[in-house]
């Protein structure tokens, strides 16, 4: 079950939710037809629940918001970007463990 803590990012709210966010933001670029994306989906939901108030977890559907994927040069999915201060501070391509993702967030907290 998807967590309501996960922010659905669009071209309209990307600037306010990610670029202008004071806390670190983990952005997951995904698609419905992507198996590995579905595989890490539950972990993304768990991270959103566990980091509520400390970090923002968001997801970008690349089919619906292709321009964001182009803007951040996403060529494979899942691609996980960590933003801090409006800048990409870390990037991971491919499925990762929950512990890895939590470690990435903690390193930029």
């Amino acid at each position, binding site marked *: 079950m998807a967590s309501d803590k996960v922010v659905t990012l669009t071209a309209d709210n990307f600037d306010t939710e990610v670029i202008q966010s004071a806390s670190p933001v983990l952005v997951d670029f995904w*698609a419905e*037809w*992507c*198996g*590995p*994306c579905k*595989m*890490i989906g539950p*972990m993304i939901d768990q991270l959103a629940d566990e980091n509520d108030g400390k970090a923002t977890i968001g997801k970008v559907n*690349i089919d619906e918001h*292709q321009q964001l*994927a*182009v*803007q951040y*040069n*996403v*060529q*494979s*999915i*899942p691609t996980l970007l960590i933003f801090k201060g409006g800048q*990409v501070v*870390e*990037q*991971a*391509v*491919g*499925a*990762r*463990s*929950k*512990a*890895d993702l939590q470690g990435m967030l903690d390193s930029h907290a």
Partner: protein
Amino acid sequence: MSEETTQPPAAGGSQESKKQTVRISLPPKPAASPTIKISVPPAAAAKAASTIKIPVPPKTAAPGVGIPKSASALSRKTPVAQKEEVPAAATVEEAVATPMRKKARVKKTTPSDNTFDIAASLLVAAGSIGLAAYLYFVLGQV
């Protein structure tokens, strides 16, 4: 910065799959400035060019400027001298401002324009030839 992984997630060890990433093809990133630049001349040059105004020449020459066709040979030289006295145009605007007047003077002073001038010239030439022949015969007899 980027690190591509091929290992399955540790927490989801049972969720192994052959491919951990899906390659996607997206349109190329648009150019930074997809605009067409129009070359516009500098403002100073445009302003300078706009200040050079070519006046419209008058359709007819000013009355009284021309010389009557019956004028004598002596009077024919006068406008030529006047033409030489016309100072050279200091600027382009002055040169453009007085083209028609100078043209009219030159045209009026051309001797081939009237038959009287031609006849006078022929008469003088014939007289000169006659005088030369007379002097030749007179001096030759001496």
